[in-house]
């Protein structure tokens, strides 16, 4: 087995809220090899973004805190790193593309300054060189008239253009690991295909690894090597992309695959969401988090929390029920 670039073990993050402590990420573990693409999918609010933010130690404290686990990147546990060490890693060895561009782009700085800044910060480039490189990077993410628009401010760009500016920023220092949180939600399919192809090309060229957080199962099918499914802060299934679509084992994963609007379905048909409410993180059931909504739950599902077990070769699930 290849040397692992990243090993996440038992990562747990909680927030203090009015309703008490909520565990947004609960005992999450996974590995990632260089050059590999892992997709993290799961319901809205299931802890995908908090997992990514925890890995980079970007959880606001208070109200949040990482209460346990380790994130070993290039042999070093990031949970033990100093703030200065983290600053040297972020935007440099590990780059994050955030889910909401407007929360991470500075509205009062031009795109050129923001995209060029990592080069000045981490590579000792001078501003003139960084500015030129910024124009080039904006062109690579297919922003039209890129050299002219390095002077534009975020509010002068369309939603998808802002998202691509964030991607350009992340690529500036040729990171070893790119964490992309819904990187293409604001993009139409043609630009989406180009941007994801660009990210994939980078993983091939430079051996960078990619964590792709997305709810677009079409994107997962096309670009991911492996998939991890999250539910209620926990990882409930992980497998190669191929095996997951062919043999989804966890009832939540099955429900997810069944609720996709399909282009080959007759029109006028109602979509089929998974019945029931998402779990209340402040009042999690003792057993399986999905049990209250599960069609095939059995008595032990309410009592004990299922652990991840290898149900098929390289295919793990956290579920007691035998998926026939």
């Amino acid at each position: 087995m290849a040397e692992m670039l990243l090993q996440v073990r038992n990562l747990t993050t909680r927030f203090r809220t009015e309703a008490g402590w909520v565990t947004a990420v609960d005992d999450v573990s996974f590995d990632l090899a260089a050059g590999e693409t892992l997709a993290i999918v799961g319901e809205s609010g299931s802890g995908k973004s908090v997992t990514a933010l925890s890995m980079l130690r970007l959880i606001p404290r208070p109200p949040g805190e990482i209460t346990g686990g380790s994130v070993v990147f290039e042999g070093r546990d990031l949970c033990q790193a100093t703030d200065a060490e983290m600053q040297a890693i972020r935007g440099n060895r590990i780059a994050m593309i955030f889910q909401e561009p407007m929360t991470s782009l500075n509205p009062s700085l031009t795109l050129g300054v923001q995209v060029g800044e990592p080069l000045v910060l981490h590579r000792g480039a001078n501003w003139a060189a960084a500015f030129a490189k910024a124009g080039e990077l904006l062109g690579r993410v297919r922003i039209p008239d890129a050299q002219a628009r390095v002077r534009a401010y975020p509010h002068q760009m369309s939603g998808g253009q802002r998202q691509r500016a964030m991607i350009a920023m992340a690529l500036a220092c040729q990171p070893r690991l790119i964490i992309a949180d819904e990187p293409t939600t604001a993009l139409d399919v043609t630009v989406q295909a180009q941007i994801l192809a660009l990210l994939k090309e980078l993983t091939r060229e430079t051996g960078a690894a990619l964590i792709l957080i997305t709810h677009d199962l079409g994107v997962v099918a096309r670009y991911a090597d492996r998939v991890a499914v999250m539910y209620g802060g926990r990882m409930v299934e992980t497998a190669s992309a191929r095996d997951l679509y062919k043999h989804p084992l966890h009832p939540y994963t099955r429900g997810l695959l069944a609720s996709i609007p399909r282009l080959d379905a007759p029109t006028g048909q109602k979509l089929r969401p998974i019945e029931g409410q998402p779990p209340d993180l402040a009042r999690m059931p003792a057993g399986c988090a999905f049990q209250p909504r599960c069609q095939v739950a059995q008595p032990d599902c309410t009592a004990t929390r299922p652990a991840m077990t290898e149900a098929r070769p390289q295919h793990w699930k956290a579920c007691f029920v035998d998926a026939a």
Partner: protein
Amino acid sequence: MPHDPPLLSVEGLKVHFPVHAGVIRRRQVGAVKAVDGVSFTVRPGETLGLVGESGCGKSTTGLAVLRMQAASAGRIVFDGTDITHSSRAALRPFRRRMQMIYQDPFGALDPRMTVADIIAEPMIVHNIGTSRAERRDRAQDLLAMVGLRPDMATRYVHEFSGGQRQRIGIARALSMQPDLLICDEPVSALDVSIQAQIVNLFESLQDRFGLAYLFIAHDLAVVRHMSDRIAVMYLGKIVEIAGRDALYARPLHPYSQALLASIAIPDPELEASRPQISVTGEVPGALNPPSGCRFHPRCPRAAAVCAREEPVLRDLGEQAVACHLV
């Protein structure tokens, strides 16, 4: 149905953003022609899908219809009234009837307000609901409708995930009981199950109250599911407008064809066996749009005439298309 007067009629809409240069003496050096002569109608109870490449002018079109963005030219007629130049006061009654779900949920929600207040605020502005308690109840009902727990009403926006915020924006827009809802990527941050729930909610509101939608989205499966008709935009212009089934069965404009061919299918084996066609070539900017047909530099079928003359949108019965070769 075709004889219903339109609820919204947009004619020749243009939105140009001036581009300046010079630090000491600012002068205009050009304009981003974000929207450049767009016309369409939306009938009561109808859904018009609006699709197209990132940056082609979809959000700007939506904002201009709401008069949140000034039009450089053209007319916006809502329910028989020309509102293109209406004063703020004259716009007020229309503001309630036209609501928008914004593309950037975080930017649109005030971080200092609780979710209950965010949803109730437009009700206060427009005098809907008599008492505080009534508005609070309504806010909680709306939260439940978008799949959030009513007890979340007392929390602040930063405590929510991306998809949860998007649904807060939807609840806020619905609180006004509008006649026209402009949805700008309303389900882009949602996982497929919640997306299905929201799409079903949009449809049932349409069935019950005759709500009309201008539905901007890049997920073509969702657009197909929601829309009666679909307009395809490219670089500030509508290149094709057609009934849903006609467009998906037989897209006529080369750009529509490329767009439909680049959808990813949620099945790795099918995906691997599919040729990956995509629109290649440099993305031209709205700053210096190409001559003639704006798509011609990237069009696989472009002929000499395409660089020379701008094609007009021609009505072919079921479909209208702006292409010299159709």
